[in-house]
């Protein structure tokens, strides 16, 4: 299949071969063996998806419980004092390492090889091993929480199990990212240079780059924590030090790395539903890369710079620059997407609703992150105000960014469900989930920002010195928002199960997609393409559709 960039060349190019022509679908796999022994990237992607969805429901419940607990900031009647610290840290560790990263890897493992025209993911056995390692590590991690071994837990064996399981999860995530990055770098279809990579595949590549710089550092620190617990504080930290070692991963700007695929997803769906080519594709690639670069700046955060040698103004200045600069590439992308939408005719289908909702929430999170770094903005408490960093403003920022990412990833599942699940996601249900998730995010995150402004500490165990009754009222609103989000998650999982068990044929290209994943069958056969696709533009299927339309005209 060859598709060309300009109209004249396109007219002379041979028609693209349909992926299903002459293709013999493989026989259905026999039972459990199809999952246990498969190196097919779609099966591996689905494995990650199932685990991430189970974790999403679990994290949603814990999140709502912590929010409800904070409605009365000093009673701890729901979870109790023994559990509140663990539940509070689980909100962050669970969301990042058991939900968002696995969900991103799930979609990237299943879709990126298709997008770049590869027959498989690079190192399929390693990719499969990483999925199983994640399942094992994730299970042990939850088990450690159950026996009170999570951060703040009291069971020493449980703490050891927790840290070991966490290292296992980090190892699995690192290997998975290596497989995805290698796929994009080396298994692209002929003619697909770096400048023609689809935006989602590009975002997976740059996000993978950020994470393989970040996850090993977390692993190194976790190994030290393990030794600390195992050899009775031989390193001077002890069981309680673990969360201090890793909490920088949940702060700005590292947390922005979670949101890199949001940009790739919006950039992939917007041109499809605007029914036009992406405006200035190469600039978009550069802006996503620039955003990724700004996420590697956690060493400038106040938690680190307080202990660092060197002039304080340098670190404070860098912290402000990194926090504010991160929003610039996203604004640039918003501009490009506005131009793209203006050029085309926008159809507000469910994936685009998810994309727009995610983008709005990400912008809110980035704005909150930038305001947090600006020193004159302080908490509104009687007496002397203090920095917003370390208050609920920080957790509100995290919530905006994390929930924006989850919304985008749910949208990605809806958009690519024909390839991922072999059936189309119910459109009405998807729209309802998108709107519920958008509403839930605003209701759950905005009051956290306000509570932070009123001086509520970020840690659920600490009580605000001032404005307590107002903060408790705001926390009730947060709990209501978390309830909405939990409802959206349950509804989404129900629709997902319905879609996965549906026999409906979604068609090879139900959306009129622009990139190569839509040039093969739904679901794609083992090996993905019956012939090696060749491309000469960043939107090969868009060119092919136009050529067909011109020919029929």
């Amino acid at each position, binding site marked *: 299949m060859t598709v060309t960039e300009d109209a004249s060349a396109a007219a002379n190019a041979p028609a693209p071969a349909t992926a299903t022509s002459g293709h013999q679908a493989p*026989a259905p796999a026999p039972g459990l*063996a199809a999952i246990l022994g498969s190196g097919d990237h779609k099966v591996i992607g689905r494995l990650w998806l199932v685990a991430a969805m189970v974790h999403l429901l679990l994290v949603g419940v814990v999140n709502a419980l912590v929010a409800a607990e904070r409605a009365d900031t000093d009673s701890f009647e729901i979870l109790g004092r023994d559990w509140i610290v663990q539940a509070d840290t689980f909100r962050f560790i669970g969301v990042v390492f058991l939900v968002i990263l696995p969900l991103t890897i799930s979609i990237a493992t299943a879709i990126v090889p298709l997008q770049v025209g590869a027959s498989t993911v690079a190192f399929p056995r390693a990719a499969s091993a990483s999925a199983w390692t994640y399942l094992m590590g994730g299970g042990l991690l939850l088990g450690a929480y159950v026996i009170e071994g999570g951060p703040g837990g009291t069971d020493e064996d449980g703490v050891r199990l927790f840290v070991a399981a966490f290292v296992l999860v980090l190892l699995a995530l690192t290997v998975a990212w*290596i497989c995805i990055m290698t796929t994009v770098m080396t298994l692209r279809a002929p003619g697909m240079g770096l400048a023609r990579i689809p935006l989602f595949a590009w975002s997976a590549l740059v996000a993978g780059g950020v994470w*393989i710089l970040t996850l*090993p550092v977390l692993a190194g620190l976790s190994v030290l924590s393990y030794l600390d617990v195992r*050899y009775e504080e031989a*390193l001077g930290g002890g069981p309680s030090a673990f969360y201090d070692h890793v909490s920088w991963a949940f702060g700005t700007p590292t947390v922005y790395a979670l949101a890199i695929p949001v940009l790739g997803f919006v950039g992939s769906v917007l041109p499809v539903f605007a029914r036009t080519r992406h405006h200035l594709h190469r600039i978009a690639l550069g802006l996503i890369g620039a955003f990724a670069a700004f996420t590697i700046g956690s060493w400038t955060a106040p938690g680190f710079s307080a202990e660092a040698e060197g002039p304080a103004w340098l670190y404070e200045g860098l912290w402000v620059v990194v926090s504010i600069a991160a929003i610039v590439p996203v604004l640039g992308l918003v501009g490009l997407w506005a131009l793209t939408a203006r050029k085309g005719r926008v159809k507000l289908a469910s994936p685009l609703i998810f994309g727009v909702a995610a983008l709005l929430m990400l912008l809110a999170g980035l704005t909150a992150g930038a305001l947090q770094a600006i020193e004159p903005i302080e908490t509104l408490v009687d007496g002397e105000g203090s920095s917003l960093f370390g208050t609920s403003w920080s957790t509100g920022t995290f919530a905006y960014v994390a929930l924006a990412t989850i919304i985008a990833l749910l949208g990605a599942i809806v958009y690519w469900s024909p390839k991922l699940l072999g059936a189309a996601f119910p459109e009405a249900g998807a729209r309802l989930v998108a709107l519920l998730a958008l509403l839930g995010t605003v209701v759950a995150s905005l009051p956290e920002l306000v509570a932070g402004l009123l001086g509520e500490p970020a840690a659920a165990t600490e009580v605000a010195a001032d404005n307590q009754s107002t903060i408790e009222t705001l926390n009730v609103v947060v709990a209501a928002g978390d309830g909405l989000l939990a409802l959206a998650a349950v509804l989404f999982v129900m629709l997902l199960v319905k879609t996965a068990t549906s026999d409906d044929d979604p068609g090879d290209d139900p959306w009129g997609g622009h990139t190569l994943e839509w040039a093969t069958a739904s679901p794609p056969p083992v*090996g993905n393409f*019956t012939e090696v696709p060749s491309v000469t533009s960043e939107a090969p299927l868009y060119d092919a559709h136009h050529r067909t339309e011109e020919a029929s005209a």
Partner: protein
Amino acid sequence: MAAATASPLAVTTPPEPRRPRVLYFGAAFAAASSALVVISMLAVYLQRRAENLAGGETALPEDVVLPLTPGNMGALTLLMSAVTLAWAIYSLRNDDRPHAYMAIGLTLVFGAAFIVDTAYLYQQLLLSPTSDPMAGLLYAVTGAHLVMTVVAMLFVAVMGFQALGGQLTGRDAEGMSAAAIYWYVMIAAYGAVWYGVYITK
């Protein structure tokens, strides 16, 4: 092109054109990740040491002397292994199998010698890992690098067996080159450990 008809249990079905550099990139990413684990631990070691020294204490317990000779010998051994590994790749690319086998064998011997050298250093230290936070960190940093060395040796050994089987000869020496990337990054990580732990003490 042949239709995809193989079992779903297969890794991939359609025969695809030769995809160069997959192992290069995979090995480079894996090497970077492994090195970062060692470097992050080293950073904690250096920070704690600086705190100790700033507080008027010694870096390690007072009666412990960190010998320089095994550290230097380790660096020299790994540098020699870099030369022999480059020799192995050169020989493989030129279909000079006897020299390739010899060079791969020597590289593995140097790797083993480095492990023995580090074990000798541990013996000379007479320091229990649990006796002092810095002792624990010292063993954690050097131990993490030893793990990386063992992984690099396994990678070279596997590729060496493939070469013995005739799969990695002539222009198709990618596997050994990928192993070499991991090996060289392992040596670079040791360079950081050597300077941070043994030289600056």
